[in-house]
């Protein structure tokens, strides 16, 4: 039933697509691109931490700037979504580079 429905839908779409008068055919133009070697830190492991509620696993944040996994305790995430390790935050004077919130606290 479902498969039939999907197949029907597919044929409808094919028909729809073929009705498009002069859609040029698909092709990929290859362009030379300069790629930058990016390294990703994979070392930081989730941290086990004892809280009032017992053992929990706190994670790491991924610093958007240095692309390193950083323990949550050494990183901050702004309300607007910018997430960096404290070292990188220092480079931005603990002011959010997107929304200018104070991140020093």
């Amino acid at each position, binding site marked *: 039933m479902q498969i039939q429905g*999907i197949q029907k839908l*597919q044929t409808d*779409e*094919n028909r729809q*697509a073929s009705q498009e008068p002069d859609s040029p*055919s*698909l*092709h*990929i133009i*290859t362009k030379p*691109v300069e*790629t*930058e070697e*990016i*390294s*990703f830190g994979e070392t930081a492991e989730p941290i086990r931490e004892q809280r009032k509620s017992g053992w929990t696993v706190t994670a790491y944040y991924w610093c958007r700037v240095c692309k390193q996994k950083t323990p949550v305790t050494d990183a901050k995430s702004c309300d607007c979504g910018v997430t960096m390790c404290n070292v990188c935050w220092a480079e931005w004077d603990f002011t959010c580079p997107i929304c200018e919130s104070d991140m020093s606290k």
Partner: protein
Amino acid sequence: MIIAEQKPFEEIAKMTANFDKVLLLGCNECVTVCLAGGEKEVGVLAASLRMLRKQGDRPLITLEETVTRQCEWEYLDQIEKLAEEAECIISMACGVGVQFVAERFPDKWVIPALNTKSAGGSVKHGIWEERCGLCGECILYKTGGVCPVARCSKRILNGPCGGSQNGKCEVKDVDCIWDQIYKRMAALGRMDWLMEIEPEKDWSKARDGGPRKLIREDVMISE
């Protein structure tokens, strides 16, 4: 093949701290090829554990053996005597091997020495990459022999998503597999296939459907 990696030595040492005589059991299949749990690795791990324990006041006796395959009962039968001698078995196979050992020797404590990573292969000396997502229903004929289930970070079937940059995935340092699929399909002159909307996948054939069991009555032997 199954790709596995040895656990950090400290972790293995901690797991074995309460035992005085252990059997280190290697496996001659996949984990030998990916240099994680073959005969050589068994020797190195055994020596390291002995050396560590020698520093304390509780020396460790190690027994070493490597079987053809840990994932088959008949090969495990061969080490029955050896297993009896040891207090625990450190299995240096993938998760399948560890469990076959535990089932075969129910009265022995079994310790996994490896982390099982993926189903894939070696692309270069020292580099192993995932290739198969074990989804239970192969779609490689639609994607030019390149698997988006295993190799797209979001396992999307109608890719690429907006995170494809210069042929790389934004999530990790791997190729954007949809970039590869398009290039391959273009080279094969099958670009139009990619305009077909790939329908929702039947994930019940993957792990989502519960543990999988394959039954083939044609090859069963009645007892």
